[in-house]
């Protein structure tokens, strides 16, 4: 990564942060859009179809589909921004692919607050992708609060895995 890219990353990070901190309340997350994925007209042996979760994961790497947060936080750090840029490249390459960002919290929070926190995390990731040029209309957000953990223990390591925003393609 050269200097110019690094600067861009920092700038966009700062932008995204600023954006989610004083986000105008009137910006309404768009409803889910059921756009049929155009057939990629495969002539080669069938792999996962464009826009499927499998295709997305193969293209960006599974680890890059999820960003993680510190306790009670929702800021996009350097590691998150690198992942989201990889995602943004994919979504730029396949402009007909719509997707959902699922926001989650760990179990060490009250249920209702965690629902709001998950929503805030999903929006932070969304705002970052929008700042990278992905149209907001392609991104749906949903919060599951602490209702859908992936790591099942009750310890710091598990909680760190559960404080996340996961990008899921709609196909």
């Amino acid at each position, binding site marked *: 990564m050269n200097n110019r890219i690094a600067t861009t990353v920092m700038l966009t990070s700062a932008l995204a942060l600023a954006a989610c901190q004083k986000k105008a309340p009137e910006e309404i997350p768009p409803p889910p859009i059921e756009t049929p994925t155009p057939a990629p007209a495969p002539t080669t042996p069938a792999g996962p179809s464009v826009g499927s979760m499998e295709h997305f994961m193969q293209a960006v790497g599974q680890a890059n589909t999820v960003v993680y947060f510190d306790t009670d936080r929702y800021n996009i750090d350097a590691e998150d921004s690198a992942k989201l840029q990889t995602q943004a490249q994919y979504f730029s390459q396949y402009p007909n692919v719509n997707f959902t960002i699922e926001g989650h919290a760990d179990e060490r929070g*009250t249920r209702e607050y965690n629902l709001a926190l998950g929503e805030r995390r999903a929006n932070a990731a969304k705002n970052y992708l929008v700042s990278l040029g992905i149209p907001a209309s392609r991104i749906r957000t949903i919060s599951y609060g602490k209702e859908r953990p992936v790591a099942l223990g*009750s310890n710091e390591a598990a909680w760190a895995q559960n404080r996340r925003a996961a990008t899921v393609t709609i196909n």
Partner: protein
Amino acid sequence: MKKLIFTTLALIASPLAAQNQDLGEPIAEGQDVETIEEEEGLSGSVSFEGNLDDLGIAIPAFATDRNVATPANASGTEALGLEMARVITANLRNNGLFKPAGPDSLPRPEFANITSPVWGTWSVRGAEMLVHGYVRARSDDRLTVGCYLYDMALQQRLVAEGWVVSPADWRRAAHKCSDLIYSRLTGESPFFDSRIAYIAETGPKDNRVKRLAIMDSDGANHRFITTGRSTALTPRYSPDYKRLVYLSYVDGNPRIYVYDIGTGSQTLVTQSDNPTFAPRWSPDGRWILYSMAVGGNTDIYRVSAQGGRSERLTDTPGIDIGGSYSPDGRRIVFESDRSGAQQCYVMDADGSNQRRISFGGSRCATPEWSPRGDQIAFTNASSFNISVMSPSGGNVRTLTRGWQDEAPTWAPNGRIIQFFRTERNSGKTSLWQVDLTGENERSLPTPVDASDPAWGPILP
């Protein structure tokens, strides 16, 4: 403009039935309970002056004038009288206040002795208080239930009342009798004749099924409202028990629905594409509070329970969520992280005069104003214990010590708090209750795991 068109289309396209697809069969609503005056008014003051939990209360089976068939009990009114006394005994014992002797260890009084006890029968058993009652089947199928409390030392009646109930509501008569005894002996307001809405949980930690369920205050008459196909969370009974508000993912998104118990159908609390959380009723049932996230920022709104335009009550950056009205409906205590972490705030019912009340150094979450108005219960979201404080934020007391206790809800009389406890690692949840001393804590039996209890007021 494009956005607007899309929203309109989405509304037309989504069939109304879709939001009902997680609902089970409607539940029969209870009938009214008619209070009748038993002959001779109440008299005398209680002779007992020691600790109530040392008080010997004898609760023999209720008598019947004639053992006849009743829809309330296949074996007839005599068996029903035994069940009545069992329900009352369990009520008084389970709340830690009394150690009553129940009908299974006592002789059964004759119908004629209900109004004139055979004192010797009970004094030899060390009883200091005596409960007598009767069940009588009426010609219209309904039941008349009488309830009498006697002071053994004074050999005097302390209080008596009777009720006419439909057979399906026989337990309500037992709860009313429990309330009569409890109130007469403690001087507190009643709470047994009430219901609880909660979330029934099953399945592994990463794939929990969460269903809306309701039950009587003692766990009886348990019913599931939703089928479990969609996740349901955070219910609240309307003060008249005709409706429930709760969160459901039935359309794929977290949304607050108003479920009508009579019709068994539900409507969205507000027409919006934004997620809505944390619904609450005003004490008079005229308003519903809900919280809505717009662009990731959550604020508290209120809407008339009849529907119509919503009004935003908070507008700070950060998460403003929940809300619980003071009993007079004038103020709302709510939760906000505007200071950087979850804290409790109070505002006027129109959203004005917002000010922080919690300064203890711990996080303050899910505040609930006591029906008596004198206390606010909340989740200490740093240590995950249930605590209480005064409405100005002083006199903080911690009442529980579970690994994770959260979501307090008050008994109708403001003397007992229910909450749910999560087990470390397994994620199993259960309902618990504790009194204001913090000493009498017990779990509430539920058919499956349970969370998000919401205790309704005394039944109308």
